[in-house]
Structure formats: structure tokens, C-alpha cells
């Protein structure tokens, strides 16, 4: 594969590119689902190809092809240079790349069990066992399960001499039980909604999730929601369980800190950001308790944003994003680092596959756990009157990442330190900085989970990327609750 990549780099240089890199990627995936006692879908997919990214005449060009023959590769590289020269026709200034040392490296996601070594029969048996537990509960009208495994092997070579070979694994699993009755559809999901929990691990993740053990409870909660009262509307202290908080971090911290958004490069689709450059190290993003990092390093954990090198050959790093409530860092790339006075990229450029241009993506954007010991039970016990919300049901935020509204699958009203009743259709809304400044308690490390979001969309053409979000249950004071159903 290195030889193939070098064919591309040689042609790009010969055609006048001042910089070029080539990525050859081989992806393999397995997706299994069940629905109401039957296999819903069963598919394997593989995709292999190469892309060439170049700077010529001071502008970017990118071309990708499935054709790995020498003539095919050389034509792709030549095409990338031609495209770059077309880009230069509408250019205000030349591209500047922050310097980066070239490196030769090999890295593979640490895993205990190769997920593709587990038989499909065993996979399906597990999903059908979960399904039978869900469907055993009277009132469940639809049960869905999923199991997903991915393997991505990448060779990255650049004209600056980098030669990086990485193999990344990820796994995901989850299920949802639906209950339709009267004029209402309620649902509960485990371990999270929209595909469950995902991490950069092997099959051991599936064994850790205790999927079967939780199925009966989840189905019973879905049915019980029909008997629950509507979540009250008003201003309440709000406790978010860690998976919902993970999504809150994703939407109201992870996206606004993307420097390409801040610089207007995503204005037409994903939007911009309220975090204009003047806010770096001046904005009080959250309360003193809020410490957030963007950490792609292996020591942060097996998040979907964990790797050794990003897709332009920059080593994984940990960037402090919010430090004791102060906004301290963006997600950057070699092209954008200089705009915030940095002489090195933060190492966040990633592509969905061989045929997509790498762009700034969240790595693992995590809220660090509270420093003082605090269990979830203690957090609830210290809340006089509030609402606990679990598991995302809907999410929406404006294109500068200020105003958000989230709905959850289930809520619990807390009075005098105890959950007193289940409430249905809970939702909350607010303004990003006001919300994070209202945080007054974070559970400690033992309650902290590194959640995976496998479906983050960004870019044109749109790319789907996996991101990681560590979070522990936390409390926010006096948050607006229930406006999703206001006036309807």
C-alpha cells in the first residue's frame, strides 16, 4: 500500500503540488438488527480506496477513487492537482499549514476480542435473547435491537515524509422497546438511544454492557410511561444522567469549539459558532466546576474519538477546552491553528472514509468528573425539588449553538432528596452559556462514562463521524423545563 501511496505523492509533486498527502483506507463493517423476534437486517460491507489531498497554487484540491492500479492512482493524483488549480481561481490568500514533524508509526486500537471473530450465530442469538426479554413485557408493541462492528485500516503518507499505519476498531450495541396505546407512543432505550453505546473496543464492549440483564426493566419502564403524568412545565433544578449529559456536551460545547465553524467555513450547512475568537480565554463558559477537555489520547479511554494520529498525521493530544469555567481552547487543524495564535495543530482532522476530505471533528470532548466524592444517589439526596432526566429522545440547537432544546425518554420528579414519581415526555431548554453556568454539582469518577456518538453529521458532502463524550450525572440549577409541549 505504501508503494501505491507513493505513486500518488510522486505525481502530485511532479505536477507542481507544494504539499500532498495520500490516504489508503480499507473499511469493513457488520450490521445486525432484530425486530419483534426476527432478524431485521444482516449485512457485511467492505470498501477500499484512496484519496489524494494537495496544495497547488496555494489552494486545496482533493480527489478520491476506488481504482488502486498505478494508472488509476496517478490519474487521481493529477486530478487533485487540477482541482487545486481551479480552487486557486477564487482565492484570497494562500493556504498556510502549521509545521508538523514527519513521523513513521504503527498503531492499533487496543482490544481484547476481535469482533469479527465472534460468529454471526452468536451475535444473532444474543440479540434475539434481548428481544424475547423485551417482548415478554405486556404492552410492548415493538422491540428493536442492534449490533455493529467496524474495522478501519489506514495508510497515511505525506510529501513531508510521514508514514503512518493505523487500524481502528469500534463496536456498538443497544435496543429500544416501544409501547403504543391510546394516542401515545412511548419508548425506552438501553444503554442509550439511537444505537446504544459505542466505543473503540472489540467484542468485550458487548460483554460489558449487561444488555440482557437490563432488558426487562427497560421494557417495563416503557409501558409504565403510559401511566405516568406529563412532566410539569416551569423552572426546576435539573439532574441529567450521564448519557444525556454526553449529548448536551456534544451539541453545546463540542460543535461550537470547532474552529472551522468559528471561522465561517461551515456557515452554509452546519452553521457558525457563538465562540468568536475574542472569547478565547475571556468567556466565562460555565461555573467554576466545569472542566472540559478534548482528548484523543489512548489514556483518556476507548472513546470513538481515540486514535494515535489524526488524518493529516498530527499526534493525538489533550486540549483544555474549559478550565474552571473559563473558555480556553478550540479544536484546530494545521490550516487553522495560526488563527488562534498557535504554531501547532490540535490534531482533530478526521475523514469518514477514503473518499472524504478530512475536516475538524470532535475527538473525545469530556466533562471531567467532580473532584469531591459524590455518587448519583448522593446527588439526588441533596436535591430538594427537581427533575431527573434520562436517555435522549430529541435534540435540537440553533446554528450558532446558543438556544437548545432536548427531550428525554423518561423523567423522575425529586422531592426532598427522593424520586417521588415518574414523569413522561420530559424536556428542557436554554441558552448554552447560561446553562453551563448553572451547573452546581458533578458526580465523581466512579459515575463517569465515556459515551460514544456514532452519528455526528458535518460537512458538504456530509460526513458521519464517531465522537466520544465522558460525563457523570450532574445538576443544573433553575432550568426551563417542559417547553416542548407548551402551546400544543
Amino acid at each position: 500500500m505504501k508503494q501505491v501511496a507513493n505513486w500518488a505523492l510522486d505525481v502530485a509533486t511532479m505536477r507542481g503540488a507544494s504539499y500532498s498527502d495520500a490516504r489508503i483506507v480499507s473499511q469493513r463493517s457488520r450490521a445486525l438488527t432484530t425486530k419483534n423476534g426476527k432478524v431485521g437486517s444482516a449485512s457485511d460491507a467492505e470498501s477500499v480506496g484512496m484519496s489524494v489531498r494537495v496544495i497547488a497554487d496555494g489552494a486545496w484540491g482533493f480527489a478520491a477513487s476506488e481504482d488502486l492500479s498505478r494508472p488509476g492512482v496517478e490519474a487521481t493524483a493529477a486530478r487533485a492537482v487540477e482541482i487545486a488549480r481551479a480552487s486557486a481561481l477564487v482565492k484570497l490568500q494562500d493556504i498556510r499549514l502549521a509545521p508538523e514533524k514527519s513521523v513513521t508509526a504503527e498503531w492499533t486500537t487496543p482490544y481484547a476480542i476481535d469482533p469479527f471473530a465472534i460468529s454471526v450465530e452468536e451475535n444473532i442469538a444474543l440479540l434475539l435473547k434481548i428481544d424475547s426479554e423485551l417482548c415478554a413485557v405486556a404492552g410492548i408493541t415493538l422491540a428493536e435491537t442492534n449490533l455493529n462492528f467496524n474495522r478501519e485500516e489506514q495508510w497515511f503518507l505525506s510529501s513531508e515524509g510521514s508514514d503512518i499505519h493505523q487500524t481502528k476498531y469500534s463496536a456498538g450495541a443497544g435496543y429500544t422497546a416501544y409501547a403504543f396505546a391510546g394516542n401515545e407512543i412511548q419508548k425506552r432505550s438501553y444503554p442509550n438511544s439511537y444505537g446504544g453505546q459505542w466505543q473503540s473496543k472489540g467484542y468485550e464492549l458487548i460483554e460489558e454492557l449487561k444488555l440482557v440483564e437490563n432488558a426487562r426493566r427497560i421494557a417495563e419502564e416503557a409501558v409504565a410511561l403510559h401511566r405516568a403524568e406529563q412532566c410539569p412545565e416551569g423552572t426546576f433544578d435539573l439532574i441529567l444522567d450521564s448519557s444525556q449529559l454526553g449529548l448536551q456536551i456534544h451539541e453545546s460545547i463540542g460543535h461550537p469549539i470547532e474552529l472551522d465553524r468559528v471561522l465561517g467555513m461551515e456557515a452554509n450547512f452546519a452553521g457558525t459558532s457563538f465562540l468568536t475568537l475574542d472569547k478565547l480565554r475571556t468567556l466565562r463558559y460555565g461555573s467554576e466546576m466545569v472542566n472540559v477537555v478534548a482528548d484523543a489520547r489512548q489514556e483518556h479511554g476507548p472513546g470513538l474519538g481515540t486514535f494515535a494520529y489524526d488524518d493529516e498525521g498530527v499526534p493525538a493530544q489533550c486540549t483544555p477546552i474549559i478550565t474552571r469555567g473559563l473558555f480556553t481552547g478550540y479544536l484546530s487543524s494545521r490550516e487553522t491553528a495560526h488563527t488562534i495564535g498557535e504554531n501547532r495543530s490540535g490534531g482533530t482532522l478526521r475523514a469518514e472514509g477514503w473518499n472524504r476530505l478530512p475536516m475538524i471533528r470532535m475527538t473525545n470532548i469530556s466533562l471531567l468528573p467532580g473532584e469531591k466524592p459524590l455518587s448519583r444517589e448522593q446527588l439526588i439526596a441533596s436535591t430538594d425539588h427537581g427533575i431527573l432526566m434520562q436517555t435522549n429522545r430529541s435534540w435540537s440547537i440553533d446554528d450558532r449553538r446558543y438556544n437548545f432544546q432536548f427531550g428525554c425518554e423518561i423523567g423522575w420528579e425529586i422531592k426532598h432528596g427522593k424520586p417521588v414519581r415518574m414523569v413522561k415526555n420530559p424536556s428542557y431548554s436554554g441558552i448554552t452559556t447560561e446553562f453551563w453556568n448553572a451547573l452546581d454539582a458533578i458526580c465523581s469518577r466512579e459515575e463517569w462514562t465515556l459515551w460514544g456518538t456514532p452519528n455526528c453529521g458535518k460537512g458538504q458532502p456530509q460526513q458521519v463521524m464517531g465522537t466520544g463524550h465522558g460525563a457523570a450525572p450532574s445538576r443544573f440549577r433553575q432550568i426551563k423545563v417542559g417547553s416542548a409541549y407548551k402551546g400544543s
Partner: protein
Amino acid sequence: MLSREQAATIFDRIKKLSSSDEVEVLFSGGKFALTRFANNTIHQNVEEENHIVSVRTVFGGRTARATTNKFDDDSLRRVVESSEALAKVQHPDPDLLPMPDSREAAGESHLRSDQASGSPIPTRAVPTRYFEQTAAITPQIRAASVKKIVKVAQGNKITTAGIFSSSESVEGIFNSRGLSEWHSQTLAEVSITMLGADSSGWQKANSPDVTNLDPLRMAEVAAKKALASAHPAEVPPGKYTVILEPSAALDIVGFMFWDYSGMSILDQRSFLTGRIGSKLFGENITIWDDVTHPLQAGSPFDGEGMRRLRVPLVENGVIKRVVYARATAERMKRSEQKDKAGPIEPTGHGFPLPNETGEMPLNIVFAAPQNPQSLAQMIASTERGVLITRLWYIREVDPYEKIVTGMTRDGTFLVENGKIKQGVRNFRFNESLIHMLSNVESMSVPLRACGEESFDMVVPAMKIRDFNFTEVTKF
């Protein structure tokens, strides 16, 4: 680009490699290029070529699929082996039907039965959707257009961001019962955002034929919106008369079409469960799914190769029927819900098998209103309301009442006394689509529109009363 003849040869090679009872091969792919600009400069510029072959095999009621983008002998052998290995370990599916042959796929039998039930579904030929002018677009041509767009921005002392993309693609299906379908298409798309200091404006359009697009005019309209919405005022949330431009209308109504599916009814997750035959919307709402419409795009066959029929989904506000894949129709005929499910026939809207979602209408066409109103007429007849260019980040809040939430974006204006008064800060809405489509006061002539939240449709601008804004953001 992969040709039909090359695909047929690959299918023959796969058929020889497979020992399954039945084999089906899907082909898709082509060339795609996109020039992206922001801050008045081209900052990304990409092109790719890729084709996929996807093999479904069947052994005694067991089926599975494997996919690759490599067509050499080893890769084809491996993809067949993967598909067969996956299929053999499945449990037999009693609902799995034999693959359709060409006659069944053409939909002849369905037409007969629909005529018998008094609901004829006429067929029309799908117009050509491959245009040489679109296929011939180069990076230089896209750059020249971007240059004109940037010039509009610079002339107005604002900046612009957007895309100009072009593609040529193929879609094909072959099966061991002799079915063979092929579709070629081109598509060009332009999307433009103009950004002022505290305001923005947006336009987007696409077409198989690039000559239908006018990037310069789009740039001028987007710039006008950005300038006119400068210094936005904060107006309190509440119920307002709104005027949704076609892109905004399609992005919000698109959230209900997953529910116009037999499988969604069987799964009891559709808001139409128990409501087919009911009048849910206003008298003025009539909606078809019609792949043959001249403003539509896409292939005329579904994931099993079945011909897509024209289907009346809503007639004068009454839910008439939903679409069906072959197996879904058979299941529905045996289900307890069959008497509440409307006409039950395969309509050619199935996804490739195996899947858990069944089918969906993807070629939505709103019928023209009796008395179409232009946007200008809608504004002129509005005492107090909000004109909306674009909606954003729409998500479902309540699946049965079909409440969705989302934001306005890139050109939101207060209308007073028949005139656009000024730009306003963007709103969050929480609105039931049932409520919304019952409150449509007037509509424009439907046109081909595209957004970001839903798929392309033929849809009108809509003037709607009592639209529910619940919050206002900071800009």
C-alpha cells in the same frame, strides 16, 4: 461510469459464483464533485469516483447482504461468500417472498387490482434525468460560477459561503429470476449563504439539468435577504401567522413521510396508526408520491426492482393510503390491522432487503392549490406574521401527535400590514404537523425545492396561521 452492459457481465460472474437458491445484485455509484466556498474563497474542492456492488443471496427463506466496491474475481468471490455465510445462519423468514420477475416488477398485476378497487394508478414514463451539460461540468466551470457569487457578496460588502456540486450516477438491479433495471442520472446543486455582520440570507436549488439553475440570481436573492434582515429585532415567542418559503415547508413536512409506510403501521410507530381514512389535515392538502413527475428525480424502481407507482397519500386532507413493499403488503393482509390500513398493494417503494423499515415514499408532490398565491401575495395579505426562509435542526418531539421542534435560520422577517417590516431574531418552534397542515391558509404553485433536513420535494410556499414559536435565540 459503470455501464449497464458491464453491470450485466458482473452479475453473470456473481451468479456463477453463487450456490444460493436466488441471488440479487444491486449496483450504485458514479462520479461526484463539489466545490465549497466560504469567506469569499474556495476552501474545499473534492471529487470522487466509486461504484458499489451489493449481493443478496437466499437459502430456503434465509437472506442476507454483503457489499464491496471491488469488482475483481477475488473480491466478487469474497462478497458472494460473505453474503452466503451470513444468509445461511439466519433463521428462516416466513415473510420472505421469492424475488420478483420482470412482469411482477413492472406492476401490471397491481394496476389491475387498483382499478378493480376504484383507485386507478396511471403509469407515466419517467422523463430523462441524465443531462450531458451536467455531466460535463468541470472544476473550472464550478469555480467560474463561484467567482460570480463571490462578486455579488463583495459588491454588497458581505461574505458568502456555499457549494456548487455536480454528479452523474447509476443505480441498477439484477436478479436470478431475470429482472434487470437500470437508471442513470445527473444532478447539479447550488447552495448559497450570504453573511452580514448580524444577519444572513440563503438560497438552495438543484436539478438533474444544470441549465435550470441560476447561481447568480440565487446569490442576489440571498444577499438581499442578508441585507434586509440586518439589525434583527427581538420579537416575543407565541403563535404567529407564518409564511414558509418552499424549502422551509419541505424541511418540516418531510418529518412525517416515514410514517406513510405499511411497515410503520404494522410496527405501530406511525402517527397514521388507526388514522387512515381520517381527515387529519385541511381540505386544501392533497399529496402524491410520484416518481414520474417532471420536477422529481430518482430511479423509477425500488430496492427489489419493483416499478414505483403513483400513489395518492392525502386527498383533500384525508389520509388515503400508505406505500408498501411486497412483503409488507403480504404481512398487512394477514394482520389484525388490515381493515384500518387502506388499500393494501405493493407500490414499489421498498428498501433493499433485508431491512427493518420496509418502505417509504420518496417522491413527494403536493397538488397545486385551486387559487395559488405568490409569496408577494401572501405577504401582502398578512396583517402580522413571520416570513421564514429556512428551518434548521428539526427533530421529532412527539411521534403520535407529530410535534416537531426546530429553529428558523438565514432570513427571518417580521411582516406587518402587508409588508416586510424588518429582520427578527430566530425562533424555536414546537409545532404539530397535524395542527400545521390543518391551518394552511394559502399556498403557492408547487415547485422543486431542497433543504437540509428532508429530501427534495415538489412543494409550495405555505401561509399558516397559529404556528407555535416557544423561544427566541440570541441572534
